[in-house]
């Protein structure tokens, strides 16, 4: 459970970790620069972003119809769609599919949706072995950690730590070889492959997966059963509309024209095909998303999970991913996590921002992230959640400055107390390394 003090404590730990600071700075800068170069080369990037925004907004506005079309198209191809409301229900559905398949080993390809429903925990509780196959996630799993970045899960991990996790000498080539060998066995022996979905195309019933490593292709080619955990908002009406979104996702996430492996899967293996799953299940998760529809937060459902907002956020770049939550982090996480779970529980997250607007500027589909954070802060105040000290402070201030005499007394006191201000409280933090600003004389007194 996250509270305001937890966020602050976790952030303080991260701020004093020199290695983490350096790794976050390099990692996020590389991803940000990659995006800017790719956007520069893309031609009409403003037009592409606007097209992306329009496609996402129109899709969400008519989501029920697109979900029905998707379900119909996929069923016609022999796939099975399971609609679920809660995270628990979604995880239980995947567990039951695995049980029916008599599975022992589950191979997973990177998916934030499965993190969201805590799928690994549910599968392990049911006695199944689960192995993450994205290299970064595999290493994080061995180390008992959660992914720290949507695109670069092991952003702070060093070569030495990676080598230790795999039991080899700290040389990149050896690390690669060990990972390739260990995971090859997993692909070949897994009974079930679990993936998320970057997009799902309604008209064709296709699941679209993108990875640079190619692990999703192996996870969906070799095991006998493929289970997709699909966030209900990831729909795209047509293949033609998928194309601009793939360009936006690749350029914004990693600065590429197209992600190395961009794969469309339409139903299970067909008659006489040599490989591919015999069964394809799509577990559609709601998990709080419906609650955003028709509200001023609806635009958050436009998010394509590229991670661009993380890389430019002054708070994320200093604190890293684990400070936020076990799943989503950075500005998109600070908006989405309280909306999907509860504002009471995640009251710290709307404050994990300087409201500088860099996230909004970086978002390929134009989600006004910093404005949504401000909206969440308004909700916190309206619902009386958050710091009592802050509320008392503002009440006193509002009362004092509502009268001439109160205004005079407080500003005079403030001027007189200025030298003391540098010694305690917020003034002390501010004056550490710089001078406390002088309070101007009141306008009326200047005559």
């Amino acid at each position, binding site marked *: 459970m996250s509270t305001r003090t937890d966020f602050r404590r976790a952030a303080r730990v991260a701020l004093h970790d020199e290695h983490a600071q350096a*790794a976050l700075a390099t990692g996020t800068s590389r991803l940000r620069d990659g995006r800017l170069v790719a956007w520069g080369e893309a031609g009409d990037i403003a037009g592409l972003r606007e097209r992306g925004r329009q496609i996402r907004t129109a899709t969400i506005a008519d989501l029920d119809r697109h979900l029905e079309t998707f379900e119909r198209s996929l069923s016609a191809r022999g796939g099975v769609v399971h609609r679920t409301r809660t995270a628990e229900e979604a995880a239980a559905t995947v567990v039951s599919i695995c049980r029916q398949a008599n599975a022992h080993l589950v191979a997973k390809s990177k998916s934030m949706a499965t993190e969201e429903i805590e799928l690994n925990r549910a599968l392990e509780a049911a006695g199944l072995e689960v192995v993450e196959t994205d290299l970064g996630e595999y290493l994080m799993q061995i180390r008992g950690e959660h992914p720290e970045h949507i695109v670069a899960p092991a952003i702070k991990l060093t070569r030495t730590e990676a080598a230790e996790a795999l039991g080899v000498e700290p040389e990149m080539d050896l690390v690669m070889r060990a990972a390739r060998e260990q995971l090859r066995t997993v692909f070949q022996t897994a009974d079930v492959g679990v993936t998320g979905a970057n997009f799902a195309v309604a008209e064709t019933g296709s699941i679209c997966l993108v990875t640079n490593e190619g692990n999703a292709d192996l996870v969906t080619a070799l095991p006998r059963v493929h289970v997709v955990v699909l966030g209900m908002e990831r729909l795209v009406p047509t293949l033609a509309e998928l194309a601009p979104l793939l360009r936006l996702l690749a350029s914004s996430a990693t600065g590429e024209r197209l992600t*190395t492996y961009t794969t469309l899967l339409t139903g299970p293996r067909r008659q006489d095909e040599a*490989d591919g799953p015999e069964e394809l299940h799509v577990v559609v998760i709601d998990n709080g998303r419906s609650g955003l529809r028709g509200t001023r937060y609806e635009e958050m459902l436009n998010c394509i999970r590229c991670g661009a907002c993380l890389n430019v956020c002054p708070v994320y770049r200093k604190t890293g991913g684990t400070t936020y939550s076990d799943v989503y982090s950075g500005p998109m996480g600070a908006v989405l996590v309280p909306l999907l779970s509860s504002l009471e529980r995640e009251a710290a997250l709307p404050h994990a921002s300087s409201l500088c607007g860099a996230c909004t500027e970086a978002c390929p589909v134009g989600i006004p992230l910093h404005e949504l954070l401000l909206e969440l802060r308004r909700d916190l105040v309206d619902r009386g959640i958050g710091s009592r000290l802050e509320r008392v402070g503002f009440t006193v201030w509002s009362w004092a400055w509502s009268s001439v005499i109160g205004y005079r007394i407080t500003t005079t006191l403030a001027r007189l107390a200025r030298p003391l201000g540098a010694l305690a409280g917020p003034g002390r933090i501010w004056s550490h390394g710089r001078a406390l600003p002088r309070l101007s004389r009141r306008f009326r007194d200047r005559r």
Partner: protein
Amino acid sequence: MRELFVERAREAGCTVLEDGSAGIEADYGIAETGSLVFLAARDRARASWIDLEVLDVELPENRIVGNLEDLFALLQPNMPSAVAIVTGPSRTADIEQTLVVGVHGPREVRVRLKSRS
């Protein structure tokens, strides 16, 4: 279109050759991104483009399309069970932001362009 494909495929880390032969043929090429496209079929296992260390393929020049939209138009209405759009070798920068190839799939991709009609 051919020139753009060659330029973009090289930028994506492929080796583009004008000669020689390979065991398999890509179904399409995409000029915009320098990608190879593979469609699952009876005689085309998914493992044939992903489960190997070196991907060595022939690509008939007349199979190069302009962009993603062109490819998607060709695939309809009978979508294959799997469509893989492969742009360069399997890669990752997960550890220390260093680019490494061949973590799961091919570490090398060779494309042999064939000018047949």
